[in-house]
């Protein structure tokens, strides 16, 4: 009996160690490609980091402007309606709400007094000038791969901005998550603190793509799922994650769930304009990534990103099934018993989206074939209904926000109506989940 107990305890310890070990010892972000990672200096091509070939002769100011777009600092460091880079944008996490800090050069409330070395430590190691630790909501585990020169280009850009006096808001984390020193342990496991090392066997375009996607673009921070320790699970690289309640979809090479079936032209259109015909549009956090970063990148950089993404190993995921085909033109569908959803749809949605889901006014309003509509969680459909997209009167596609027009029950009902009518499977999002989405955005 006693011996059996000991064996059982031993087995539990071994199992726990294996699980934790698997969590802690993650493969590198691009080790899937194999090959030998070499020092940047020993890689023959010199265009892997820094600015792309189109800007080879640009002045330092234009270079800095480009590098900060590559890293997309503005999206997170700007509050809704706030001054750019002055921080204050909330991120509602399971442990509480965290607000991004002011990174304008104001000496008191911003980073005006920071030295180059302090700025490098912050971006590469997640360590503030006073020695305290940043939470990994700041993606330093990705930014650590940026070269010193690129990090300092970002600093030069920030220091060229007009200083904004705006004190940082404290986060609302409770114990033990308010213990910043714990992030030192997190970093020891999950921040490699290593600069980008090109893969010798891969060409300069692929390596440039890897640098843009992994180091600067930090795509995995949203598109790769996280483990219990909130570290990126690199074994499920790019299989889909979550950002502010929005599902960040699978961008592996899988033909059904990922982007394996997208042509290079479709990907380039999506990344540079936020829309690809028949594939849908970028909204929520991805809409911001397109507007503030990806749409500013050169053609050669977009091509590099696409080259790299297409080599990411395919993973199939439930949230991204094969999209359903066109929907019938008749509003009457006996198979959908959802009178509340139908009432909202016919009053507020049908005029733009059409009963076929093909889009009644512009192609950007197409619902069929779109990831979000075929996602059985309906999270992004509900988030889209709450938040809308774009601005009216710009000549660009626009959708109003319905957060103030409809109750949680109505929004849940119409989201479920939309997935049932136009998607691969009907969803069952609840008013409670809609309420949570409201708080996150």
């Amino acid at each position, binding site marked *: 009996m006693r011996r059996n107990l000991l064996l059982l305890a031993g087995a539990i310890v071994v199992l726990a160690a294996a699980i934790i070990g698997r969590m802690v010892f993650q493969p590198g972000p691009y080790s899937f490609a194999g090959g030998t990672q070499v020092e940047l200096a020993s890689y023959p091509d010199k265009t892997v980091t820094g600015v792309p070939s189109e800007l080879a002769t640009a002045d330092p100011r234009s270079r800095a402007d480009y590098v900060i777009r590559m890293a997309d600092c503005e999206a997170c460091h700007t509050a809704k309606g706030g001054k750019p880079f002055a921080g204050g944008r909330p991120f509602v996490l399971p442990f509480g709400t965290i607000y991004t800090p002011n990174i304008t050069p104001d000496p008191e409330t911003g980073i005006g007094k920071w030295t180059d070395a302090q700025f490098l430590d912050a971006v590469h190691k997640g360590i503030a000038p006073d020695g305290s630790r940043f939470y990994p909501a700041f993606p330093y585990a990705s930014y650590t791969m940026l070269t010193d020169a690129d990090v300092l280009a970002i600093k030069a850009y920030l220091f060229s901005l007009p200083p904004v006096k705006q004190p940082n808001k404290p986060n609302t984390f409770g114990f033990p998550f308010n213990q910043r020193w714990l992030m030192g342990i997190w970093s020891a496991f999950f921040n490699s603190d290593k600069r980008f090392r090109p893969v010798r066997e891969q060409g300069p375009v692929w390596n440039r793509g890897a640098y843009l996607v992994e180091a600067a673009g930090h795509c995995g921070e949203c598109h790769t799922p996280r483990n219990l320790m909130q570290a990126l699970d690199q074994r499920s690289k790019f299989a889909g994650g979550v950002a502010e309640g929005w599902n960040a979809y699978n961008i592996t090479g899988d033909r059904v769930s990922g982007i394996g079936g997208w042509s290079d032209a479709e990907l380039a259109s999506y990344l540079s304009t936020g829309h690809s015909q028949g594939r849908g549009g970028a909204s929520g956090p991805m809409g911001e990534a397109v507007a503030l970063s990806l749409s500013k990148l050169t053609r050669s950089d977009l091509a590099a990103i696409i080259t790299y993404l297409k080599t990411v190993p395919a993973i199939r995921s439930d949230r991204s099934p094969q999209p359903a085909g066109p929907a019938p033109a008749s*509003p*009457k569908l006996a198979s959908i018993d959802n009178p509340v959803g139908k*009432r909202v749809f*016919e*009053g*507020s949605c*049908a*005029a*733009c989206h059409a*009963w076929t889901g093909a889009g*009644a*006014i*512009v192609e950007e309003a197409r619902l069929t074939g779109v990831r979000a509509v075929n996602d059985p969680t309906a999270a992004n459909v509900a988030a889209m209904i709450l938040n809308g997209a774009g601005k*009216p*009167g*710009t*000549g*660009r596609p*626009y959708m*109003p926000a319905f957060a103030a027009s409809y109750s949680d029950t109505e929004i849940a009902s119409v989201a479920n109506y939309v997935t049932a009518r136009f998607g691969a499977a009907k969803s069952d999002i609840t008013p409670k989940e809609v309420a949570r989405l409201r708080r996150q955005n």
Partner: protein
Amino acid sequence: MPEFTINGEKRDVDVPPDMPLLWMLRDLLGMTGTKFGCGIAQCGACTVHLDGVAVRSCQLPVGRVGNRAITTIEGVGNTPAGAKIQKAWIDLEVIQCGYCQPGQIMSAAALLTGNPAPDDADIDAAMAGNLCRCGTYVRIREGIKHAARS
């Protein structure tokens, strides 16, 4: 210069492609029968037809019109369904203040063209996006049924 077919006539209009069709109709061509309501495709006052299909012109950039024929409230009376709807509107005195009615008539005419005998659910599905702050909805429903019978 881009060319448009409006109520059967060819029109050359010097217009930037991102201008909403409603702007072109009202401000450049002086066709003020089509109304501006909300500007975000939520009220239906700006409804016109593109190849017979009801479309909110406030959200349609003219660059996306392509070769499709535009019909506005000024020309809908020349279509069979439009003539029936207009007659029904007069017979039943559907209109109160009238501001939303060009849009109501355009949506109703498009409905009748595709569905000569719509029931209440069909009318809801086609007309729910056209708001009327006078509350003429009951007479609109009757008007459509009256036109369908005529």
